[in-house]
C-alpha cells in the first residue's frame, strides 16, 4: 500500500484519537482495580495516588470475609449459566425458523419478540414476586433461572437470527443434496458455523443475568439462595463510602465478565469477519 505524507499525518491523527479513546474507556476500569488495592489513606489522599504503590489486600479480605460468599458465587454461576444455555437452545430453534423458513405470521413473530425485548423487568418485580410467592417457590434458584432465561431470550433469538441468516444457504443446500436431511444439515453444517455467533450472543445473556439485582432481592431472602449482586450491594451500605472495600467487591464481581468478554469477543469478532470474508 502506498502512503502519502497526508495519509501519514491523518494516521497520526487517528492513532492519537485512538489512544485518547483507550484511556477514556479503560480508566474507570483501571481506577476500580487501583482503588481496590490501595490502603485507605491513599484512597482519600488530597492528591490522587495514581498507581497503588503500597499494595494491600485488606479490602479484598473484607470483601471475601462476607458470609455465604462462596454460596453466592455458586448460585450466580448456576443461575447465569443455566439461563443462558437454556435460552440459547430455545433461541436457536426459533431463530432458524425465522431466518430460513417462509410461513404465515413470520413477521408477527419477529415483531412480537422485539416487543418482548422491551419488557421493563425492573418495574414488574412486584408482579413477579406475587406469582412466585403464591406458587411457593421463594428462595429457590428455579424461578430466577426461568425469568432470567426469558429476560435474555428475545435478544438472543433475534440476534441469532442474523447469524443464521449469514450462513450461506448454499452450504446447507449442498449438504442436503449430499443426502443429509434438513436437521442433519443443520447440525453438521450450520451449527459449527454458528459457534462464534452463539458465543457472542451468550455474552449479552451472561452479563444481563449476572447483573440482575431487583428480582433476586425480593424473591430470595435466604442467604443460601442469593446471588452476587446482593453481596456487592451489601458492601455499599455496610461501609457507606468506604471506597476501598466497595471497589474490591466490584472488582471481584467484574472479573468473570471481563475475562469472558475479552476471551469470547476476540473469537466472536474474528469468527464473524472470517465468515463474512469467506462467504
Amino acid at each position, binding site marked *: 500500500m502506498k502512503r502519502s505524507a497526508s495519509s501519514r499525518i491523518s494516521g497520526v491523527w487517528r492513532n492519537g484519537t485512538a489512544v485518547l479513546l483507550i484511556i477514556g474507556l479503560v480508566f474507570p476500569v483501571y481506577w476500580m482495580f487501583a482503588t481496590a488495592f490501595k490502603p485507605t489513606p491513599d484512597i482519600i489522599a488530597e492528591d490522587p495516588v495514581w498507581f497503588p504503590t503500597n499494595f494491600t489486600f485488606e479490602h479484598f479480605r473484607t470483601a471475601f470475609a462476607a458470609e455465604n460468599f462462596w454460596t453466592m458465587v455458586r448460585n450466580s454461576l448456576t443461575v447465569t449459566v443455566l439461563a443462558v444455555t437454556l435460552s440459547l437452545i430455545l433461541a436457536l430453534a426459533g431463530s432458524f425458523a425465522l431466518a430460513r423458513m417462509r410461513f404465515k405470521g413470520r413477521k408477527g413473530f419477529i415483531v412480537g419478540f422485539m416487543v418482548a425485548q422491551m419488557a421493563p423487568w425492573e418495574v414488574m418485580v412486584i408482579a413477579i414476586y406475587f406469582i412466585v*410467592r403464591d406458587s411457593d417457590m421463594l428462595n429457590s434458584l428455579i424461578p430466577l433461572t426461568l425469568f432470567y432465561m426469558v429476560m435474555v431470550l428475545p435478544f438472543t433469538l433475534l440476534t441469532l437470527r442474523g447469524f443464521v441468516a449469514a450462513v450461506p444457504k448454499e452450504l446447507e443446500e449442498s449438504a442436503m443434496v449430499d443426502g443429509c436431511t434438513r436437521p442433519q444439515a443443520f447440525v453438521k453444517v450450520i451449527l459449527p458455523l454458528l459457534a462464534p455467533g452463539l458465543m457472542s450472543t451468550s455474552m449479552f445473556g451472561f452479563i444481563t443475568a449476572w447483573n440482575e439485582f431487583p428480582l433476586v432481592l425480593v424473591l430470595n431472602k435466604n442467604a443460601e439462595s442469593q446471588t452476587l449482586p446482593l453481596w456487592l450491594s*451489601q458492601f455499599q451500605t455496610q461501609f457507606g*463510602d468506604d471506597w476501598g472495600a466497595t471497589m474490591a467487591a466490584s472488582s471481584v464481581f467484574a472479573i468473570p465478565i471481563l475475562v469472558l468478554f475479552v476471551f469470547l469477543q476476540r473469537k466472536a469478532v474474528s469468527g464473524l469477519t472470517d465468515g463474512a470474508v469467506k462467504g
Partner: protein
Amino acid sequence: MKRKLIAAIGVAGMMVSMAACGSDDGGSDSSGKKSGPDSYKGQTLTVWAMDGSTPDQWQKDLTAEFEKKTGAKVKFEVQQWNGIQQKLTTALSEENPPDVFEIGNTQTAAYAKTGGLADLGDLKSEIGGDWTANLNEAAVVDGKQYGAPWYFTNRVVIYNKSVFKEAGVTETPKTRDEFFAALDKIKAKGKAEPIYLPGQNWYFFDGLTIGQGADLVKKDGDKWVSNLADPKIGAAMDLYKKYQSYSKAPKDKDEATPQQADVFAKGKTGAFIGMGWEAGTAIKANPAIEKEIGYFTIPGETADKAEGVFLGGSNLAVAEGSAKQDLAKEFLKLALSDKFEGQLAKLNGVIPNKESLNSNLAGNVVAEAAAPGAKVGGTTPLIPEWAAVENAPNPIKTFMTAVLNGKSNDEAAKQVEAEFNKRLAQKQ
C-alpha cells in the same frame, strides 16, 4: 434513607438516661414461668437483626443459653438497611416470616397498622414493668404493645483536640454560645474548617427541633399536615444555619456522602456531629487521628440542659404470621433479660431499655458525652404515616437545603408542603 438510619441507630455510647420514668416498681423484671428444656426441641427460631446490632459475643452467649433453656435453635440473619422496608413487608406476607425481627423505633407504628406485628401485651406485663417509659413509647400504638424496646443511641460532638487547642479553645464548650465562640476562634485561626456539617444532617436538625420544643407535623382536622412553617421550626433551622455557616460541606448532601468521618480524618476539621461509632471510621481512614479525637455533649442554651437530640433506637417485634410465637416470646424474655440487655449495652455502648442497667455503660467516654443529650432526647413524630416521609427524597432535607441556599423559612416550607402533606396523607 438507609445510610442515615445506620447513622441514627448505629452503635454509640451513652450512659445515664431519662429522668423520671413512669413505672418503677423495680424487681419485677424476671421471667415468669420457665419452660422445660425440651418443650421446643427441634425447632429453629429465625431472628433478623440489623447490621451491627448484635455483637458476636452477645449472639453466641444468647444462642447457647436459649438452646439450653428451650431446646430450640436460633438462626440470626443480619440485615442491611438498604431496601429493608420492602424486604420486611414482603417477608411478613410470606409463609415463613422471620419469627423475631429488629425494627426501627420510628417505623414500628406503621408496621403495627399493617397487622404484621404480634401483640406483645402479655410479654410487657410479664417482663416490661420497668422498661423506661419514653423509650417504650414508640412500641405502643393505640394502647397496644407491638414491640419490645431494645436499645437506643444519640449524637454527640466529635472534635479534634489539637485543632481546638491551636485555636486557643482549652475547655470544651458547655453552652451553645461557648460552642459558637469556639468555632469563631477556629475560623479566625484559618487553618481548619471549624465544623463539618452538610446541609442535610436531618437527624441533627430533628434534635434541634426537639430542643426548641417544635413539632414537625400538626393535626388538621383528622389529618396530619406539615408544620414546617412554624416559628419554632424556624428557630431550629436558624440554629442549623448558623452551625452550617462554619462549614464548607455541600448544602444538599447528608453526612454519609462523603462520609463525614472520612473528612474529619484528615485532621483539617474542628468537629462534626455524629454517632460515637463514626470515630472508628475516622481512625480507619487515618490511624494517626485517634489520639486527637474527643467527645462532648451537643451543648444547649444553658449549661444545665443539653441540646435536644434524636434518639435513634430499635424495638424487637414478633411476626403475626409466625408459627412459633410462643418460642419467639421465650427468646425475647431471654434477650431482654438483665443479663443480655446489660451485656448488649456494655458491648455496643448503647442505652438499654431500663435505667437500672445503665451501670453497664460506666467508663465509656462516648457514653459520657451522649448521656446528657439522651435526657432531653426525643424521636420523630410517632404516627404510622411518618414512615413515608423519610423515604428518599425526604422533603425535610429538601426544606433544609432550600433554607441554607437562601430561601426564607416560610418560602422553603411552602416549597415542600405539598410533597410533605402528600406523604402524610398516603394510605397505609
